């Protein structure tokens, strides 16, 4: 029973990592980025590539590199395609779906169809034992990374100049633009950070999961659900939603099985949106749609 608690938290950590980037791009810019999963994949493959140079420590070295790689991929996507679609979020879904298909095939052609492996650093080999509960270090690492990312984003959004601009654009694009904020620049930055975070998530997920061309599709639906349940563009919403979903998943699976747990989680979200149609936290606005 108690042993499920850290498992739930670690699922929450992974969910939060994959969803953080989406909270930005989906929440703030209204872009439904179906290629988000492929940015996660790019992060994982970055770790794989760096393995040749850093061998056992590739995971650590890959964190900043993957952020850059995935961030730049996101930037390119934004510059050449997505910027034409602002204000039409549903069209971005279709566009990025095509991009995701192509990126998967690119990965298949570069790295081959079979999975590859990234060796975890030896210092992550082991467990923390608290009474009857043992938590693998890899899971602690993912949880710590998730917390670090959340803190960094919070600080960035609330303490830096660019972060303030970002919030301004999110809350009222026109007014921000009138006040002299270059919304285009802010959008690019947002997309860069959002995509970069997906890359970081990809690196972390090499510790627990497979690394292959279809890696992204495994996580995409879950990531969207976290964002929707948490409320668009809401950092604390995403955190709470990830924890709630992680716990639900781990306990329901404990009592029944993995398939049932998935179905229950999805059903719970559909039911939850009946009570709070815009997620846990809502940005108040007087605007009419």
């Amino acid at each position: 029973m108690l042993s499920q608690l850290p498992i739930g938290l670690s699922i929450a950590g992974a969910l939060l990592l994959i969803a953080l980037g989406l909270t930005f791009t989906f929440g703030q810019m209204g872009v439904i980025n179906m290629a988000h999963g492929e940015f996660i994949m790019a992060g994982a493959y970055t770790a794989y590539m760096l393995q040749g140079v850093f061998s056992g420590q590739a995971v650590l070295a890959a964190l900043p590199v993957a952020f850059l790689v995935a961030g730049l991929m996101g930037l390119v996507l934004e510059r050449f395609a997505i910027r034409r679609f602002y204000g039409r979020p549903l069209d971005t879904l279709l566009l990025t779906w095509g991009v995701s298909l192509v990126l998967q095939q690119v990965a298949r052609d570069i790295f081959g169809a079979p999975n590859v492996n990234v060796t975890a650093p030896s210092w992550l080999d082991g467990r923390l034992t608290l009474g009857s509960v043992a938590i693998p270090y890899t899971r602690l690492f993912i949880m710590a990374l998730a917390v670090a990312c959340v803190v960094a984003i919070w600080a960035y959004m609330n303490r830096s100049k660019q972060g303030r601009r970002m919030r301004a654009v999110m809350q009222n694009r026109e007014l921000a633009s009138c006040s002299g904020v270059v919304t285009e620049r802010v959008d690019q930055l947002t997309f860069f950070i959002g995509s970069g975070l997906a890359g970081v998530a990809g690196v972390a997920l090499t510790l627990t999961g497979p690394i292959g061309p279809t890696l992204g599709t495994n996580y995409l639906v879950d990531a969207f659900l976290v964002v929707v349940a948490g409320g668009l563009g809401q950092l604390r919403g995403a955190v709470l939603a990830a924890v709630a979903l992680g716990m639900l998943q781990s306990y329901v699976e404990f009592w029944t099985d993995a398939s049932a747990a998935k179905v229950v989680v999805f059903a719970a979200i559909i039911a939850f949106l009946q009570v709070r149609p815009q997620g846990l936290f809502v940005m108040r606005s007087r605007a009419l749609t």
Partner: protein
Amino acid sequence: MRITPLRKMAVLMAASALALTACGGTEEESGSSANANEIKVGILHSLSGTMAISEVTVHNSELMAIEEINAKGGVLGKKIVPVIEDGASDWPTFAEKARKLIRSDKVATVFGGWTSASRKAMLPVFEQEKGLLWYPVQYEGLESSPNIFYTGATTNQQIIPGLDYLKSEGKKKIFLVGSDYVFPRTANKIIKAYAEANGLEVLGEEYTPLGHTEYGTLVSKVMAAKPDAVFNTLNGDSNVAFFKQFKAAGGSAKTLPVLSVSIAEEEVGGIGVDNIVGQPVAWNYYQTTEGDVNTKFVEAFKAKYGADKVTSDPMEAGYNAVYLWAAAVEKAGSTDVEAVKKAADGIALDLPEGKVTIDGATQHVYKTARIGVIQPDGLIKEVWNSGEPIKPDPYLKDYPWAAGLS
């Protein structure tokens, strides 16, 4: 801007006309290119989608077999020409492409499929169109279609020897872990019947959705049950997640052996050797299997596809399928499906896994069961084998304890 209904309809008509002419076009092409000196065969595996991981390698080994046979003069003096199609990891697509190969390309036979679902989707097509399919992967048994030859193991050539091995190792309590689809569910049904008859205890049975990657809960359930061994029928990506998280939770081959039936040489790299080293697997062939035929097969494969490539059981079974079919065609003197089927009975060839004989009654093959252990270099070393090829028994008729299963 207004879109007039006329414009819409004009475009619709033009496009449909285009589609129709294009459809017609391919028809004529395939019809006229039929050559008296060629025999067309279909190769139908997933080249895209989630199953591409596994199926591309079988696709490659089948093409290699065709090339080898052509280099030796082909079949009946004719060249074998492969027609390649992509099943796209989607079962209805397999059915569509199978029908296309038989109807439009008029292939003599098809080599293809991997998942049980793809085979079940193609089965009615081959039966209705009177075609012939060679299916190269171990599967759950309880099937014997007159239009399919099965060159992979059925349950009594893989699952049951695996259980015999666990029993001989003194494992009394086992835990069943599998992906949620037909093969694991059927395999586990057989395992439970076997356990009951052989005094083994099944402590638990867990399934996860295909492509599942979160195994924290499942691993802790397994650990808490304290079994002597785990029987693993997980598939594809899930194996990677399971073994990574199993190792992170402190599991290893020493503390808890996990016998897998879907992990071959090529999957080991993706899982990471250190996550799975020392774990047993059950197959009929390993890259390290001894014999001249295998040495040549491995060399040829590496020469063609790269020195870092490995060979595995399904690849070998696909390779075998091509040779067995070619032998049957030579014996029958024709590519006619009925003649080939009749001629196939009793054909015996020396193939990489050893002597392989076709059992005409079930259209399966005799195979030697082999238990191997994963080595630090990623290859698999045989630790036990059944001594002689086991007669295929897809419905487990010769096993009294399995009476209630089918």
